């Protein structure tokens, strides 16, 4: 009986013009988005590789230079570009891709993609991930909203009940058909979206696991949404009402909740003005050290640290350059200020992110958007990881340069010149996206929300379908 019902459901799907029409539309959208994502990834990957190469070449081949002059000239750290950014760019279009590792200053990340894509601005959200989730859920809603209500209106629900069909077979058939449909939809969509990426050179193992996780995520989310629509269809008094309620649910899940979450986050935790941050950095990290006497303690501490390291009681007995020591003392002094000010900024961003996290409990689609970007390595977590690791690298290389100047620049100060061997000894910036373990830990609430939505919606749909058949209406 269950098989007959499934067969009938698929026959109806096959003859449903809406499904074909929306399917073609989804295919076209997905193809366009995938092509765009693929081109964007290739362009970004190529630009990044070239920028990394040029940065290193310019750095290594800068010739003889004072290490502190080189520290001001310094290098760039470029954000890692995960291959899955072509599928889900997450926040990467809106967050800086480069970090200037300059002496004395912790810079914000720069080179945001949106600054260069004005022409495409209206379509900037059209990523394959967005299409699968938002357009895919729209297709699901359109096809399924009348799944039970139409049977009730046509009288076939009563006919099914009168045939002696068991409630279990009816429920499994009604819920099984969309399950198979969504599985095929997600596999097909992921193949279109990720097919070209599979041909690129990348470390296959972690990406394969991430692709699998994305597949499971989108399947579960679309399935929970389909169960919600089935539940509505079984409870609604008419197909018109089922359509309106399904459309409302889709609008809330797919469009309103992300907007609402964003607005709520910045209302509760307003953004910190960039100019104010710069002013505060100047006031706390630069002026007091160079102009006032606030840096005296830092200089003394730095002197003691060097004396301790080299086992002497008087820094001057080492014959090292005192200018370099002061420069490093400033670094240590300023770093504390940066930790405080950027710490506040990051805490603000984390608070904003928390608001979005808890809002995502209300919408499995919003939760999925966040998890998807996390799996793709293009979320805020990856961005923070990049900014933190780049800043850490900045501190390390500036310290190396200051140390070289301190040891080798005695009596020469800023006229001391280092050569290529020093530049080559400075390590390149390297990092990778947060591991899947970190992603799972960070998005635990969102993952739980998706699971709970799936279970609750499956239960509600199950109950409503069963009741519909038993009552024959």
């Amino acid at each position, binding site marked *: *009986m269950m*098989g*007959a*019902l499934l*067969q*009938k459901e698929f*026959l*109806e799907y096959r*003859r*449903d013009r809406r499904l074909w029409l929306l399917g073609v539309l989804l295919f076209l959208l997905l193809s366009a988005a995938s092509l765009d994502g693929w081109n964007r990834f290739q362009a970004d990957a190529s630009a990044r590789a070239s920028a990394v190469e040029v940065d290193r070449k310019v750095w290594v081949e800068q010739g003889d230079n004072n290490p502190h002059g080189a520290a001001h000239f310094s290098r760039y750290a470029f954000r890692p570009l995960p291959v899955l950014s072509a599928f889900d760019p997450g926040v990467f279009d809106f967050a800086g891709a480069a970090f200037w590792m300059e002496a004395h200053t912790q810079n914000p990340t720069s080179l945001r993609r949106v600054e260069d894509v004005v022409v495409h601005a209206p379509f900037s959200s059209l990523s394959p991930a967005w299409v699968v989730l938002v357009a895919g859920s729209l297709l699901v809603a359109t096809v399924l909203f009348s799944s039970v209500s139409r049977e009730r209106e*046509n*009288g*076939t*629900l*009563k*006919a*099914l*009940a*009168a*045939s*002696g*069909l*068991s*409630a279990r077979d009816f429920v499994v058939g009604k819920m099984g058909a969309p399950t198979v449909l969504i599985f095929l939809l997600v596999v097909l969509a992921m193949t279109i979206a990720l097919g070209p990426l599979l041909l690129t050179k990348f470390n296959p193992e972690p990406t394969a696991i991430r692709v699998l996780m994305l597949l499971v995520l989108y399947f579960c989310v679309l399935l929970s949404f389909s169960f919600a629509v089935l539940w509505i269809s079984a409870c609604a008094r008419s197909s018109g009402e089922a359509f309106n309620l399904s459309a409302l649910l889709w609008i809330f899940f797919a469009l309103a909740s992300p907007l609402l979450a964003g607005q709520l986050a910045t209302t509760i935790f307003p953004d910190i003005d960039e100019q104010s941050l710069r002013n505060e950095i100047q006031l706390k990290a630069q002026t007091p050290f160079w102009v006032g006497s606030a840096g005296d303690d830092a200089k003394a501490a730095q002197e003691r640290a060097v004396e301790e390291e080299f086992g002497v009681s008087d820094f001057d007995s080492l014959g090292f350059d005192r200018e370099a020591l002061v420069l490093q003392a400033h670094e240590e002094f300023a770093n504390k200020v940066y930790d405080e000010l950027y710490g506040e900024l990051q805490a603000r961003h984390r608070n904003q992110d928390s608001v979005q996290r808890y809002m995502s409990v209300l919408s499995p689609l919003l939760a999925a958007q966040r998890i998807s970007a996390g799996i793709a390595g293009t979320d805020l977590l990856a961005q923070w990881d990049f900014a933190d690791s780049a800043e850490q690298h900045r501190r390390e290389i500036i310290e190396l340069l200051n140390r070289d100047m301190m040891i080798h620049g005695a009596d020469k100060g800023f006229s001391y010149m280092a050569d290529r061997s020093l530049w080559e000894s400075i390590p390149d910036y390297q990092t990778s996206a947060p591991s899947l373990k970190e992603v799972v830990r960070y998005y635990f609430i969102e993952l739980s929300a998706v699971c709970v939505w799936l279970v609750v919606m499956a239960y509600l749909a199950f109950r409503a379908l069963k009741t519909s058949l*038993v*009552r*024959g*209406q």
Partner: protein
Amino acid sequence: MLVAKAVRKTYGGIVALEDLNLTVESGSTLCLLGANGAGKSTTMNLFLGFTSPDSGSIEVDGLSPSRTPEAARRKLSYIPENVSLYPALSGLENLRFFDQLSGHQRSDGELTEILVSSGLIRSQVLQPVAQYSKGMKQKVGLAIAFAKGAKALLLDEPLSGLDPKASSEFTGRLRQFQETGCAVLMATHDIFRAKECASTIGIMRAGQLVELLDASQVDAQEIERIYLKHMREDSAI
């Protein structure tokens, strides 16, 4: 086969059925006549297990539809006023689907023969049901009921909206059911068709079975006279 004993059914304080007693034996047909709201459809729904009696009992071949609805429904075929079919599917596909739900695995050839013997023209069998007339759908409904091989057939106003030729064909097919030993319970407004195919005619008024007539003992005019008498009493009440 179909038994109702002292059944009472109310909906929110309104009495739909009161002390209903009826029996339909295998191979016989009971036609229920009555105005709208007389309780005919409620009686059908009780036998189908879509609703339960407040008191009294309902049995389908010894089974209680309210306690074991699925088992009871497997013994029944049901044809409503508007036969419910899937419009995107052809007559053959609809029949195949309901036939499979009944646990059968007939070939397309066998199913086509059943449709044709129910009055459908062979060329119509593969057309989508969306293109069918009401009469054609009734024929598919009969084919589904026949293919199920149920022990009892419930018909709720199956003749309304059918032209005289289609009605005549329908009652003709109905007699085939009786010949197979099937118990038929039909609710209708059509006195003349009721007389034509029923073995017993029941008249329902305000939830009660007020008259039970042996169809072979009365002619259509007499049935009409008795029926109208009860309807006038109903109006007076």
